[in-house]
């Protein structure tokens, strides 16, 4: 990944700073979540500023995915507050849809719609959620397909594409809604090793444009290169967070040290 060179760390604005509310993209305050009796997320406090790139790492079952799925309400939290773009997530369906319109999500298993062509996958939501005219939506879709470097696949079906291509389409599909925030849920975990890079490159270029991003990933190289902040989770809690350099070179918590020693050989 060293080919994509410069990492910019100018816009770093770690949580806790006093800033105006419009600069806050996501504010999670004292949030808890249970699956039945199981306490999956405990006392989560997380403030994400506009333009911030955050990588969430941690062992499997630590609640990383659940946390970002709470941010667009694919999962419901039971206690505490989640405020996204100034809208607090409650049971109000209108608010949920409002938040989801502005928050893109990329899944581990792509979740493209297999019965629609690539172009239809990209234009469905702009047309039916934003009310964009069809021709305009298609222009925009082609624009984003060019950005992820597969405009020639527009008329194919998802099943005809490789995993890496499908994931790039999934990113383009989210971008077509022109979201303010992008959530990535292990976007490269289901890919063949040869295809990881093409997806990461798209994500890096997004980061360089200043997209607010939260990525759950095991790609530590990506974290080093683009993240403003790395968050380490275990047992449903945020154990440690720091700037990537400090996080990797000087982890504080025992659990973090153990985790890093396991994954960095």
């Amino acid at each position, binding site marked *: 990944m060293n080919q994509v060179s410069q990492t910019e760390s100018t816009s770093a604005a770690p949580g806790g700073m006093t800033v105006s509310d419009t600069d806050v993209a996501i504010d999670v305050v004292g949030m808890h979540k249970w699956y039945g009796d199981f306490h999956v997320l405990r006392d989560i406090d997380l403030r994400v500023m506009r333009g911030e790139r955050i990588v969430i790492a941690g062992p499997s079952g630590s609640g990383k995915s659940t946390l970002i799925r709470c941010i667009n309400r*694919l999962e419901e939290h039971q206690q505490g507050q989640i405020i996204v773009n100034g809208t607090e997530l409650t049971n109000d*369906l209108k608010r949920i849809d409002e938040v989801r*319109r502005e928050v893109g*999500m990329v899944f581990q298993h792509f*979740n493209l719609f297999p019965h629609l062509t690539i172009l239809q996958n990209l234009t469905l939501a702009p047309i039916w959620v934003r009310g964009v005219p069809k021709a305009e939506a298609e222009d925009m879709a082609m624009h984003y397909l060019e950005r992820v470097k597969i405009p020639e696949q527009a008329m194919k079906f998802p099943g*005809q594409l490789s995993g890496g291509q499908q994931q790039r389409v999934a990113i383009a599909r989210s971008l077509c809604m022109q979201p303010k925030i992008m959530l990535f849920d292990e976007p490269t975990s289901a890919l063949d090793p040869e295809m990881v890079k093409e997806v990461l490159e798209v994500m890096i270029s997004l980061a360089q444009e200043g997209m607010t991003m939260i990525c759950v990933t095991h790609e530590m190289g990506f974290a080093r290169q683009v993240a403003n902040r790395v968050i380490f989770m275990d047992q449903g809690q945020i154990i440690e967070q720091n700037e990537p350099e400090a996080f990797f070179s000087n982890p504080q918590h025992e659990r973090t040290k153990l985790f890093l020693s396991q994954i960095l050989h």
Partner: protein
Amino acid sequence: MSIAFVRTDMAPSQSPPTRSSGLVGWARKNLFATPVDTIFTIIGVLFLIWAVPPIYGFIFPTSLGGNAVAPGGTVEQCRVENAGACWAYIAARFNFFIYGFYPISEYWRPNIVFAMGAVLIVPLLWPAIPYKGINALLFFVVFPVVSFYLLNGGVFGLKPVPTEQWGGLMVTLIISLVGIICSIPIGILLALGRQSDLPIIKTLCVMFIELWRAVPLITVLFMASIMLPLFMPQGMTVDKLLRALVGVTLFASAYLAEVVRGGLQALPRGQYEAGASLGLSYWKRMFFIILPQALKHVIPGIVNNFISLFKDTSLVSIVGIFDLLNTVQAASSDIDWASPTQAVTGYLFAAFVFWIFCFAMSRYSLFMERRLNTGHKR
């Protein structure tokens, strides 16, 4: 010897090895592959030799080397010993089998309905033909209304024909088409309702489905035609055919709901989540993402239901509605055409008509399955 190896030239792609082809090759592979296969082949051939000639002789007229009496023949020919099927009888009573007791002078009305239906349904089912929207509007809204007034009469100076006089294939087609078309939306809504997070809707849907599925269709029809009027206020009547239609439709939708639910459950959760994460509302998610995939998965089950519904319409004869089978049965006691093969020929004819429609549905569903397959498994 070194273990190091570097490929210098890539192996080219070759065509697969040819096996012995042609008729002999096919027979060797499919009929005589093993001694057991050979035995079964011989038994099969002997069975065909034993069974086919008598069946052929019964069905085909004398001009084709059989014993059947062709349309236009006389009842005397049908009464000859060893006579085959009495097709002359079918031809003579054909109108009765198609229209029931509908007045002969008014046959043009059902004929127009048949023609309209055919003209509208063919382009609707043919994917390459455009204007599906207006076609669907004509077929699902205009056609039923026009057909009703045309068949029932009483407007525009048309002679009223009460539904008691409707019959034959016409009634069979009306009941099954109405049942099929109305049960699709109701069944889908029930299936979605059963998956709903809203407890009241879910409970109502579960109760409806479980109630209708647990009752035999005959019971439903009896209830509709005999019990229902007892509970109605004095002087208020609902048409018998309409009651049967409602009964059949609700019965079919309960079954369809469970088939559709199977399709909904087969979809990975990621499809629901991807739709939700794009901000699509529940109904848009269902309409654009979930249902197209779920229904495609369960086409065989849905068509199975439709075929079974089509055949089950013959049960309405029990409550005195003259569907195709009932007209055939009624005609078989016709003294004018009394002959040893009269009843058998009638039932053979009914079976053939049912088979044509069911087979067409089956083939069409296979066609749609192939056409809708965008899986492109690599």
